[in-house]
């Protein structure tokens, strides 16, 4: 049962442009959402998070938007840089347990 979905397996963006990565979820009990970045041969690295009481959180070039009614969140990277090329995982946690649920990832390629 895929509770967190990333429907785009890959995305290519020109350097300097905006990258938009999308994520959908099904569990209305999720109250904390995260984005992780993963390079090959490394573990996922925490990037940015958002609580369900907010609809936007910004950290430098990275902004996460949450639309609870649509059960959708997105990660915006502006401007995109070649070093941003990695696999990005969306994750979510509900307040009934300790488990974090991950999407299948989107591979971002930023073209110089």
């Amino acid at each position: 049962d895929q509770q967190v979905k990333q429907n785009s397996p890959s995305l290519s963006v020109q350097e300097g442009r905006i990258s938009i990565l999308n994520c959908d979820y099904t569990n209305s009990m999720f109250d904390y959402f995260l984005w992780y970045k993963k390079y090959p041969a490394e573990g996922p690295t925490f990037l940015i998070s958002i609580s369900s009481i907010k609809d936007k959180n910004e950290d430098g070039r990275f902004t996460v938007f949450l639309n609870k009614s649509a059960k959708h969140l997105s990660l915006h990277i502006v401007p995109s840089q070649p070093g941003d090329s990695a696999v990005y995982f969306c994750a979510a946690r509900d307040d009934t347990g300790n488990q974090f649920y991950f999407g299948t990832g989107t591979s971002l390629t930023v073209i110089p």
Partner: protein
Amino acid sequence: EPEVTQTPSHQVTQMGQEVILRCVPISNHLYFYWYRQILGQKVEFLVSFYNNEISEKSEIFDDQFSVERPDGSNFTLKIRSTKLEDSAMYFCASRRETGRGTPLHFGNGTRLTVT
């Protein structure tokens, strides 16, 4: 910056053998996790551990799996009799405390290959 460390980085074992994957979580973290990622698939939850006991486990975490925190620093995942389908990247993660604003911090993983 403190890191979660995992050893070995790559483990090759024969089907039916026991393996132990080792992790040293970040020192002031209280919650510990194992996740795995089969090639090309999603990152899957296996188990969470708090206060010296399992707090939650998934369907994947059957009787062949066990976790232990043998001392104040190590956190291990044991697979008693490995199967071919256990081949995956295994990630250890830790979290400082409960509550909404505490993300998981992952190690670099152990690639387990069962032949």
